[in-house]
């Protein structure tokens, strides 16, 4: 998504503004873009959300279905979260198997939710070692404008919060749906991912596409409802000082608690 000379000019401009404490779209350095969450966008799924973070747009659909447990994990349900960039989201996106960027995106979003223990997977067992409930949260990006880590994380979290899980029983070793027994997915905490970029010596929150193209490094930090840090991933071709990393942790807790209020409304509206 870059062409080097234009990127150089863009970077100079962005950096010059940052020296004056300003961002290219007028935000404060620690300010996220507008976040719009619409749940139940895919009514036939078990849960879903359409999220717009600035001009990045993601649809997440949750499918809940019986599955076999992983080996040695027979007392736990399954949670898998994916992310895909649809080719209509940006002219540079190519069809075909996902590249390293998209694989990293999907795995970071998955781990943020997984490591927070958001879903109590021990409650999603149909029969120990034989049959469990699988929760599959698939994100598709329909419009790209930078920072997809958070857009996908919010979409997946909102979709899970809006989900109802059916109930199954084992009949003759085959999981059979018990009609009319839907319940909420068991939730223990609400993880919030906050992605920050580093441009020069400046840390900015929720980089848009222009900022994303020119930033030196980035870090995504996920916090839980207790204000603890439960996942992190550094990316990009430069590094952070230790002080910067610690400050990013503080920012993620602060911003996370604001975003969490928005996500709680999803839960309450469910």
């Amino acid at each position: 998504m870059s062409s080097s000379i234009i990127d150089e000019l863009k970077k100079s401009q962005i950096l010059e503004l940052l020296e004056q404490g300003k961002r290219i779209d007028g935000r404060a350095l620690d300010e996220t873009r507008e976040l719009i969450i619409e749940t139940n966008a895919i009514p036939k799924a078990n849960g879903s959300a359409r999220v717009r973070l600035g001009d990045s747009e993601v649809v997440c659909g949750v499918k809940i279905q019986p599955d076999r447990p992983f080996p040695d994990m027979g007392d736990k349900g399954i949670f898998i979260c994916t992310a895909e960039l649809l080719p209509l989201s940006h002219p540079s996106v190519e069809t075909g198997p996902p590249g390293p960027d998209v694989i990293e995106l999907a795995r970071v979003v998955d781990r943020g939710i997984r490591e927070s223990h958001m879903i109590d997977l021990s409650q999603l067992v149909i029969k120990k070692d034989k049959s469990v409930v699988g929760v599959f949260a698939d994100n598709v990006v329909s419009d790209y404008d930078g920072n997809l880590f958070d857009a996908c994380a919010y979409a997946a979290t909102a979709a899970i919060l809006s989900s109802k899980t059916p109930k199954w029983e084992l009949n003759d070793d085959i999981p059979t749906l018990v009609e009319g027994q839907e319940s909420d997915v068991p939730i223990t905490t609400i993880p919030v991912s906050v992605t920050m970029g580093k441009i020069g010596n400046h840390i900015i929150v929720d980089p848009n596409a222009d900022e994303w193209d020119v930033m030196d490094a980035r870090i995504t930090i996920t916090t839980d409802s207790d204000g603890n840090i439960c996942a992190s991933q550094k990316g990009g071709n430069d590094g952070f000082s230790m002080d910067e990393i610690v400050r990013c942790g503080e920012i993620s807790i602060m911003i996370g608690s604001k975003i969490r209020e928005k996500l709680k409304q999803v839960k309450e509206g469910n």
Partner: protein
Amino acid sequence: MGGRESELVLLDENGIRCDGRKVDEPRRIMIKAGGLKNADGSAYIEFGDNKILVGVFGPRDVHPKHMSNTDTGILRVRYHMEPFSVSERKNPAPSRREIEISKVIKEALQPAVILDKFPRTAVDVFIEVLQADGGTRCAALSAASVALADAGIPMRDMVAACAAGKVADTVVLDVNNEEDQAGQADMPIGYMPNLKKITLLQLDGVLTPEEYKKCIETGIIGCKIVYDLQKKALHDKYFGSGGEQ
């Protein structure tokens, strides 16, 4: 004679179908032109419970170059279903069904677009099925036409699409998912209303020669209903919305 058994009452004594429609009544249709920020043109359609997003890029350079044509621009279409769009979560790899539908939709759009002014380029149509409910290819084709127009691609005509079919021994318009599963025949049709050309036609299921003809006629009536909504969607975007959006 090709019918399949079902406990579902597909057509009751009053001629009302399983979802409350009359035999010649399409499902609820909502078409919106535009909507995507990065695509050169886009459209969104809700057709019954189908929810489909289409984005168009181009004319633009072709990679790899040997795929391009020095005489004309080429049209490329990808029809793709999201993992969560169907009742059993779909494997993300493109299925043979998706590849075939991509080709059928491409060939249905081809007579409508005028690309000879854009040699060596491609126009890419990306169709994303967010929620599927029977008849996705017709809904997708109808939305793709609107997205192409929204992208400013020169066109001879719009392609409007709707299926007809046979349910409870009766020819009906716009077969839904239950009717397709339990019914006797489904015939998706794509049609250019001004040029009076059928550019998509498929049939699965058994029809007498008379029913075959009646299905085509019925389908074309549906296409004309869709065509009016396509025009309205473009009008709403470019000249302001006067009604439902």
